Structure formats: structure tokens, C-alpha cells
């Protein structure tokens, strides 16, 4: 009962945040509302008894990534004048919704078709750091390894694209 209420609250919050991201003209506000969404998602993860992910969501997403975004927005110090004058945005959104509807209905249809949708009681330690770690390092070693390469590439790439460069060697 309490769980339902929580779920409902988080769900509403997250959707609202998403809609806010959609509607606010200034990216700053958008980022803020996205943070709201992420935090509420973290709450939902907790409800799904995914403890580690709950933590990671808060730390990585809401913490690291979003703060990075906010930092860049401030760094570029964007004025109202810099923002695109998105005229006819409503029109676009209306058309967008019309285009989205089939996709949404398709996905909903899929989701509806899931059997045994009632959440069952899970044993203790589900989603805990230890358990997830075990799974990670037993079954999912390879992805874990190659993610390092991915991050390396992102690192170097960011430096190359945005950082200083010694031209013409």
C-alpha cells in the first residue's frame, strides 16, 4: 500500500520532470527538471530493491553527469538571446505527439503482454553490492573490461575536440 503510494508519487514526479525538460526554454531549467526526474527514478530503483543502482543513479547521474552539464551551461553562460527562438514549437510538439502515438501504443502493447507481472518477494541481498559485484565479475567481465576502453576513447576524444591543441606537427 505504502509502496504503491510511493511509486505513484515518484512516477508523477519523474514524468513531470521529463515534461519540464520538454517545455522549459532555458537549458538550465531543463537540466533542473531532469535532475528531478533522475532522483525520482532513483527512488523507483529503491522500490525495485536495486540498492546498488539506486546509489549509482544518485551518484553518477544526478551527481556527476548532471552537475557536469550544469557546469558547462554556466561555463558557456548562455543568455536568453543565445537561445534559439523556437517559434512554432507547439506545432512541432503536436505533430511530434501524433507521430509518437504509434510507437507508444506499440510499446504499451508489448508491455501489456508480459506474463506474471506481479512482483514477488525477493530474497535478502537482491541487488546488493556484493551480489551484483559477484555477477559482474563472474558473468560480465568482458563488458566491464571494454567499458574501460570506451571511457578512454571518450577521454581522449573530449580532449581532442575541446581541449588545447598543438597544431601542425
Amino acid at each position, binding site marked *: 500500500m505504502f509502496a504503491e503510494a510511493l511509486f505513484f508519487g515518484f*512516477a508523477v514526479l519523474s*514524468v513531470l520532470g*521529463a515534461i519540464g*525538460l*520538454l517545455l522549459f526554454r532555458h537549458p538550465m531549467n*531543463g*537540466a533542473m527538471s*531532469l535532475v528531478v*526526474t533522475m532522483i525520482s*527514478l532513483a527512488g*523507483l*530503483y529503491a522500490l*525495485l530493491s*536495486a540498492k*546498488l*543502482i539506486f546509489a*549509482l*543513479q544518485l551518484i*553518477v*547521474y544526478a551527481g556527476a*553527469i548532471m552537475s557536469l*552539464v550544469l557546469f558547462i*551551461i554556466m561555463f*558557456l553562460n548562455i543568455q536568453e538571446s*543565445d*537561445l*534559439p527562438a*523556437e517559434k512554432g514549437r507547439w506545432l*512541432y*510538439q503536436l505533430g*511530434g*505527439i501524433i*507521430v509518437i502515438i504509434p*510507437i*507508444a501504443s506499440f*510499446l*504499451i502493447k508489448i*508491455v*501489456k503482454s*508480459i506474463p*506474471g*507481472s*506481479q*512482483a514477488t518477494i*525477493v530474497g535478502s541481498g537482491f*541487488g546488493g553490492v556484493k551480489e*551484483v559485484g559477484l*555477477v*559482474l565479475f563472474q*558473468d*560480465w567481465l568482458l*563488458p566491464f573490461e571494454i*567499458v574501460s576502453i*570506451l*571511457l578512454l*576513447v*571518450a577521454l581522449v576524444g*573530449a580532449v581532442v*575536440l*575541446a581541449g588545447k591543441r598543438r597544431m601542425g606537427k
Partner: protein
Amino acid sequence: MIQDYLILSVILFCLGILGVITRRNVFSVFMSIELMLNAANLAFIAFSRLHESMDGHVLAMMVMAVAAAEAALALAVVILLHKHKSKLDTNIFSLLKG
């Protein structure tokens, strides 16, 4: 019950798509994509809850890592664009066409 989570993820996912195709602000677009990834994550977690298997958590972690990497690069690109034109409008970058 789990279905509600999934439906929520679907809704968020579609809102993300909507953001991508309706906004011209580079930041908003990137954040919409992040939103889509989050929706996917929610689905992962919900499914792993459904299957009683923790693979979904790992997958979600991987997706987070990828999201972080993409975000880093995306912001670098934003800075690059801002150096060229101090605006963040995607429509002003349309030299290549036809």
C-alpha cells in the same frame, strides 16, 4: 505491478523521443537522449526484478557508463560548436545540405 514500472519507462522513453524531435537547443536534445537512456535503465531494473536475476543491474550499470562517456563527448562537441557560433541552435548548423 511491474507493468506499471514498464509503462512509466515507456512514457519517459517517448517523452525523450519527443524532446529530441521538437527541441532545437543542443542541451535539451542531449538531455532528452539521457532521459531515454534512463527509461531504458528503468526497464532493465524492472525486468531484472521480474526475472529475479541481477543481470539487469549490471546492464544498467553498463548503460550508465556509456551514458557518461557519451555525455562527456557531447559536451565537448557543444563547446566546439559554441566556439564556432556562440549560439546553441541546431538549425544554424545547416551548411551541409542538398
